[in-house]
């Protein structure tokens, strides 16, 4: 094949993926590394890429300490209860103490943040969310990243990280191909910040045909954050912690502003409040510590999102669906009605299209809600991702190995979906994580930790061959058949994706099995996953666009395999409403109040699983009082 090999050498910091995490990393890296070579490799076009490509109508993570609203530890406690205890509180506290400085800069850059006319503070949607006119959120942060970066490579699909050959377990850059020219791109870099996307489309979606694109998380979020990291042998955490979203049916339009700002609420098919009737049974499963409606009512401690999902799913399964969002009251106010529509146009236009197509005017009828297929990601209300070091002034020894947000591979950092255990970062928190990773990566280089990296031509050539294999495979076997897509020697990326989705759905708790799985099912699933892996060696790509889909599928496959291993490892049902282990339906704090950590051996493909301690932020005073009687 005549594709050129283009080598970009002497990079200090390579940013892999330029969504909110990557733009934050590139922006901040310039400040700490004035003379450093900062390069961005982005799969699409940085001006409209990542999960925020179409905009956002809210920034979901803002403390507002400046207005006396919240302190970082308040946000940590919120994320902790929402995720049923399973979070990295050092990373969360760190993100929360910096996130406001990010948001204040966004405002200075021209992002329109709404103000509360009475208080002058930002217009709150909920305790953590502020409302914005964010149609151009992504182009604005992209400008900031472009100003800081030496070079931005758009349309580069990164497939693998390069590894140092003079020292094991140290990163040396990344490789990929240009999805337009087909050329092979090699980025030799001292440090890499992986800020690629989480995974949509690994579970069979509710929609069929065309509608498969109308997923909740962007269809281009191909799990590359995890594919790149797992492929390099980085340890991963909480990969079982997939998220299921309760959203407007079919369009998956957001409900945050509806619940929090418009004060709409849900009811079942016969117009009743349904959640509270499921609480007693659910309390038996998870314990009063995690579900205490009275306490929640008194103290405004939220009821975890997964548990509210459980109530919705159970009510529908009991035959009292559909669940409706009661909009008819709020929408009588023309101002709130306008906000309701703007909310969709700002971040999920498809929902507005659907209501226009079906003549659903929420002023006159209450729209349907449903629960989505599961998603695996680490920046919204769930925390899948790499096992990363925390900051030195917060993290206990088990969480600290020198550089903030560095994975277990030296010189390899994570931000956004890539960093594990840090849910509820959202857009602003992901950008902030990128900033933190960038400062740490500069320090890593300045400390001389990236000296003497060696990458052989053999490694570069081996990856090149691997990358183009699907094109080669197609070329060799295509003419064995007359026409069409049925070939005994290969499958195409769509066929492979369909198989992956079906397998994840049926064996790993997808929507068609009401999110249920167990050990037996997972073991069968893992076996089938291995067979799929063998067939992925025989993927065929007709052109460069299909080659892109082929590599997205390989990243989705690596992600899915990790999800299955983690789900098998955690022998409890920690998040009813996200998924159920039918063979252990209760939450089990005695054995499983721990974070799950995995590593896939890049040579053998074998997985090892371990438990890591779960630390929580507690009041130092309480701690002293607790300790006192023992000392006496």
């Amino acid at each position, binding site marked *: 094949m005549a594709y050129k090999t283009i080598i970009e050498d002497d990079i200090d910091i390579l940013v892999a993926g330029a969504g909110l995490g990557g733009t934050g990393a590139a922006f901040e890296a310039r400040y700490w590394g004035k003379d450093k070579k900062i390069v961005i490799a982005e799969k699409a076009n940085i001006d409209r890429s990542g999960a925020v490509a179409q905009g956002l109508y809210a920034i979901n993570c803002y403390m507002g300490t400046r207005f006396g609203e919240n302190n970082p530890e308040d946000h940590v406690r919120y994320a902790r209860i929402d995720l049923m205890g399973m979070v990295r509180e050092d990373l969360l506290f760190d993100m929360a103490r910096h996130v406001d400085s990010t948001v204040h800069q966004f405002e200075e850059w021209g992002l329109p943040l709404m103000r509360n006319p009475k208080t002058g503070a930002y217009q709150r949607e909920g305790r953590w969310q502020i409302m914005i006119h964010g149609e151009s959120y992504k182009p604005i942060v992209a400008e900031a990243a472009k100003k800081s970066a030496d070079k931005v490579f758009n349309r580069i699909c990164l497939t693998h990280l390069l590894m140092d050959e003079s020292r094991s377990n140290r990163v040396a850059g990344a490789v990929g191909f240009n999805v337009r020219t087909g050329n092979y791109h090699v980025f030799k870099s001292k440090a890499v910040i992986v800020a690629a996307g989480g995974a949509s489309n690994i579970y069979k979606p509710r929609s069929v045909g065309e509608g498969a694109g109308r997923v909740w998380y962007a269809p281009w979020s191909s799990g590359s954050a995890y594919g790149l990291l797992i492929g390099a042998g980085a340890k991963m955490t909480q990969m079982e912690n997939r998220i299921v979203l309760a959203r407007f049916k079919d369009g998956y339009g957001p409900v945050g502003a509806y619940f929090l700002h418009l004060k709409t609420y849900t009811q079942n098919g016969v117009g009743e409040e349904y959640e509270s009737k499921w609480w007693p049974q659910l309390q038996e499963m998870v314990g009063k510590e995690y579900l205490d409606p009275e306490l929640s009512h008194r103290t405004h401690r939220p009821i975890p999102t997964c548990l509210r999902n459980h109530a919705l799913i159970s009510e529908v399964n009991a035959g009292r669906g559909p669940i409706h969002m009661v909009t008819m009251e709020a929408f009588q106010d023309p101002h709130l009605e306008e906000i309701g529509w703007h909310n969709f146009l700002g971040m999920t236009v498809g929902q507005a299209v659907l209501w226009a197509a079906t003549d659903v005017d929420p002023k006159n009828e209450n729209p349907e809600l449903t629960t989505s297929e599961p998603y695996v990601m680490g920046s919204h209300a769930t925390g899948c991702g790499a096992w990363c070091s925390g900051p030195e002034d917060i993290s206990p020894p088990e969480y600290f190995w020198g550089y903030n947000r560095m994975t277990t591979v030296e010189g390899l950092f994570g931000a956004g979906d890539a960093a594990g255990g840090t849910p509820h970062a959202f857009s602003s928190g992901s950008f902030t994580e990128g900033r933190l990773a960038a400062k740490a990566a500069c320090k890593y280089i300045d400390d001389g930790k990236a000296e003497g990296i060696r990458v052989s031509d053999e490694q570069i050539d081996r990856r090149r061959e691997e990358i183009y294999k699907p094109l080669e495979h197609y070329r060799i076997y295509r003419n064995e058949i007359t026409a069409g897509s049925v070939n005994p020697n290969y499958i195409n990326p769509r066929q492979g994706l369909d198989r992956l989705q079906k397998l994840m759905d049926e064996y790993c708790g997808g929507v068609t099995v009401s999110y249920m799985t167990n050990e037996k099912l997972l073991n069968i699933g893992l076996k089938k996953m291995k067979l799929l892996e063998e067939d992925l060696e025989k993927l065929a790509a007709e052109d460069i666009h299909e080659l892109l889909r082929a590599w997205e599928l390989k990243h989705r496959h690596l992600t899915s395999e990790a999800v299955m291993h983690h789900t098998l490892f955690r022998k409890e049902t920690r998040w009813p409403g996200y998924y159920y282990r039918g063979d252990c339906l209760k939450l089990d704090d005695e054995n499983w109040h721990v974070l799950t950590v995995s590593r896939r051996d890049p040579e053998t493909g074998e997985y090892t699983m371990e438990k890591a301690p779960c630390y929580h932020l507690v009041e*130092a005073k309480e701690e002293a009082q607790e300790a006192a009687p023992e000392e006496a």
Partner: protein
Amino acid sequence: MPTFVYMTRCDGCGQCVDICPSDIMHIDTTVRRAYNIEPNMCWECYSCVKACPHNAIDVRGYADFAPLGHSVRVRRDEEKGVIAWRIIFRNGKKDMNLLAPITTKPWGQGIPQLADAPAPSQEMRDSQLLFNEPKYIRLDEGDLHTLESNGLKMKEGVYY
């Protein structure tokens, strides 16, 4: 709703190809105009619709759940800093115009060039502070929050 392109309006300029986050707007080599090559990978994000200089791209709701006969159109104007939407229902009974700002500053001018910012001191490098901090955290003289300043401790065990 996947996008589609009107034959008479598209001139094949490729702006949509350049911007599509999903790499699904391509140029058809026969008619030399853009089209959506993979509708089931379209997120209806409207990036191409907004980028098209000829308003040649529109969206038709996903065939598996959206009936025909609706319209959601948009015009985005960076110079004026606004975006204008028009939503028309299938039954024609609702026809809404909605306008929103997209920026408060002349495009791209509010963003600093960090290469020109004064270099951070060694003390700053050794601290936990990021660019513009601590000032931008609360826009007062206060410092960054730490475990100590907030009276906190990290403790292993089961806490809710």
